[in-house]
């Protein structure tokens, strides 16, 4: 590089002022390079890929509406007498936190709307995370190289629940206070350290005067910051890994088929933000959520009927409701060295959630250990093509739903005019046998769908046209599929069980035997995709009937 080239460098001068400013900025931060890189990122189009976006947009809406609420909310537990516009609570003694929540609802312009936006967005946030995770699980998108991102996503789910719970308690109304008392009970049930943790958390005996302020700090500072950090990690990994895609002709682990981010996908995604915002705003405008004025101020003595947590904590509440206090003469409470061990609180509160989250976090590694599959996967499985995984997922989902339903057992009883006790007995039974039934049914359904696919691939689609042959036989005319549709039905892997293999020392370890056993369990029931030879045979068998005909219909059976 010499003086001559330096003189040629400023060859490009933008014509407009805006262009010159853009050029100035670009020369300093290199935005066009980034834009080129991101703008060319390809996203496959499928409706089920958009739930992560829904969660992200709900989170943005939560930040915006939450910021508005912090302007008016006062997290103090000091006692005051209500002096706002809601007459049925006039002059009632309450905490400043509850009083300021009521003021947001009745005396701040747009306050009630913003409160409802915030709460509906919170419910939608966790719900969309849940649906997003179900999609990822059932399509096998957690497989290599995305295991870490699955873990980050699971952490996000837990953080979202934490954000929801800390927010739920802030208004200090009777409902949230009852919820907090349940949490206090669960904490106190933890052996030895429980009472200490409870006293540290509440700054003394429940409810104390500190907890709302502490939860507020967690709710507006720590938890959102962690969520933001995890979202950045999550999206970063999405960019690094590229997006997964459903199987289809021309799609393989080496490519991504879809639209580039810019401009089509960016426009769609941007527009989708406003759609999500619009849906939440309409819900907030027309449907009330958490009517705190109905519940009254928190006071440890009253407990309202129909006290439930928000839906995402519901499964823990449901497990607590299902746990019997005693079974016959067998009781769950022991006094050991002067410490009371309350298993009838500890077991339901921690064990089901513990199992659920442990399996969720570890599942990618569990499956790759069983299948010995260490390849990268960018093409998704259709749920039916991984019957055992699908069955495991459905069993877990049903288990969750049983506990979830138990949280509304009283409403099931009153609305369907059945006995609350019977509802509890049924749900207790389903807690154990529900997942088993779900596993068997889901696996059989998946296998049946695979057989149907195979049948269609081999013999074509039933047209409903019945033809009588010269010798009197009736047959239904089957139309063959076009190649693109057939690819979808035959283009998948169906691994067979991997038997135990000896290690380098020639020994079949016990662990390897266990793996082989699980591998058999995982893959023994399988429907192999139709092979090219079978397809050839399938069509060849009926070929004479179609070759001469004027239409390319194949006849079968």
């Amino acid at each position: 590089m010499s003086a001559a080239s330096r003189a040629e460098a400023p060859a490009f001068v933008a014509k407009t002022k805006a262009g010159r400013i853009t050029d100035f900025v670009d020369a300093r931060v290199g935005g066009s390079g980034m834009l080129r890189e991101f703008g060319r990122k390809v996203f496959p189009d499928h409706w089920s890929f958009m739930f992560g976006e829904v969660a992200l947009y709900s989170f943005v809406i939560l930040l915006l509406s939450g910021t508005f609420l912090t302007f008016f909310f006062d997290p103090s537990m000091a006692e005051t007498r209500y002096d706002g516009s809601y007459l049925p609570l006039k002059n009632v003694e309450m905490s400043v936190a509850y009083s300021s929540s009521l003021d947001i609802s009745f005396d701040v312009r747009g306050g009630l709307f913003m409160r409802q936006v915030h709460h509906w967005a919170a419910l939608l946030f966790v719900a969309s995370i849940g649906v997003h995770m179900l999609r990822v699980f059932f399509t096998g998108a957690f497989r290599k190289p995305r295991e870490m991102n699955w873990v980050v996503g699971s952490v996000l789910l837990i953080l979202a629940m934490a954000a929801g719970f800390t927010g739920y308690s802030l208004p200090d109304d009777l409902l949230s206070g009852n919820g907090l008392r349940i949490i206090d009970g669960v904490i106190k049930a933890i052996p030895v350290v429980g009472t200490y943790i409870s006293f540290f958390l509440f700054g003394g005996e429940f409810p104390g005067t500190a907890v709302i302020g502490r939860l507020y700090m967690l709710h507006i500072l720590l938890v959102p910051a962690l969520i933001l950090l995890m979202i950045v990690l999550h999206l970063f990994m999405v960019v690094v890994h590229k997006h997964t895609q459903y199987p289809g002709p021309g799609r393989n682990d080496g490519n991504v088929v879809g639209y580039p981010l810019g401009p089509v996908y960016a426009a769609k995604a941007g527009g989708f933000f406003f759609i999500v915002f619009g849906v939440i705003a309409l819900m907030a405008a027309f449907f009330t959520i958490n009517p705190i004025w109905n519940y009254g101020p928190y006071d440890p003595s009253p407990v309202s009927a129909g006290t439930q947590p928000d839906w995402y904590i519901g499964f823990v509440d449901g497990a607590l409701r299902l746990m019997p206090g005693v079974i016959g003469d067998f009781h769950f409470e022991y006094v050991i060295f002067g410490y009371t061990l309350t298993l009838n609180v500890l077991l339901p509160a921690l064990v089901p959630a513990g199992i659920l989250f442990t399996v969720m976090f570890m599942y990618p590694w569990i499956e790759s250990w069983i299948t010995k599959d260490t390849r990268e996967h960018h093409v998704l499985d259709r749920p039916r093509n991984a019957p055992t995984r699908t069955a495991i997922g459905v069993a877990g989902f049903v288990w969750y739903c049983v506990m979830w339903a138990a949280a509304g057992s009283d409403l099931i009883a009153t609305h369907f005019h059945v006995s609350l006790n019977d509802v509890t007995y049924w749900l207790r039974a389903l807690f154990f046998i529900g997942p088993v039934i779900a596993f068997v049914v889901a696996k059989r359904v998946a296998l049946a769908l695979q057989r149907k696919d195979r049948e269609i691939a081999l013999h074509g689609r039933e047209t409903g046209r019945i033809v009588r042959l010269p010798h009197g036989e009736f047959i239904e005319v089957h139309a063959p599929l076009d190649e693109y549709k057939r690819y979808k039905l035959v283009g998948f892997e169906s691994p067979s069980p991997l038997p135990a293999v000896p290690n380098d020392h020639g020994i079949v370890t016990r662990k390897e035997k266990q793996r082989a056993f699980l591998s058999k369990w995982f893959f023994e029931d399988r429907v192999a995709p139709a092979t090219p030879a079978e397809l050839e045979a399938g069509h060849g068998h009926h070929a004479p009937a179609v070759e001469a005909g004027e239409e390319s219909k194949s006849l079968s059976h």
Partner: protein
Amino acid sequence: MKALSQKRRHPLAVIALLLMGLLITGGLYAVATTVNQAKASTTSFSANDTAEGEKLFAANCATCHGMGASGSQDGPSLVGVGAAAVDFQVGTGRMPMQMNGPQAYKKPAQFNDDQTHQLSAYVASLGAGPAIPEEHLLDEQGDAAKGGELFRVNCAMCHNAAAAGGALTRGKFAPALADVSGKHIYEAMVSGPQNMPVFNDANVTPEGKRDIVTFLKQIEANGSPGGADLGALGPVAEGLFVWVAGLGVIIAFTIWLTSRTS
């Protein structure tokens, strides 16, 4: 005094003392319970009402409650339940009962106001019990905020803080209180129908009951400031709504966004 101290070791002294003690406690208890009872006033019932009521009773109620309302295997004795209980049970259609079950359901009243009045008169004539509340207690002009506090402490654990009702054990339930008249709410408190406990006048004063009725009527009239209340059932209804309606609409949009015009 000397006589007393001499006689105190008499073999019958213990029995005398015991008798005295029993009489005093029993007497005090009798006084105390009647003091706390909402006063029965049969003044507004004429002899004709009572006579007509007896006929109605014999024709419609005696099958279960027995002749003279003395009770049978199928129904309790109604002696001393008072006019309030009859006015509530018959006025809300719970009695005559449609079928045996954990709890009688509210249904269209089977008797008109005059007949209900006559039945009340008859049952009230059988023994003292809570009376139908007077008009000034039902004027809904009490202190709603105080009524709300009383409601949350005494009623919300079964009827729900928003008076939306709740489940009890084995098919029993506390009904929702919207659309229940102030008179019937008051009568329910003093008579304790079905599985409800009695809230006598020592427990919740007549003014307190007036406040509770005022509160319930006021929240009913206020409606739901935040839009449709989804049954005022709390987080379960809200969760169901966000999963079905919220996510449903969102999914419809995602399908629309990713559909191709092919």
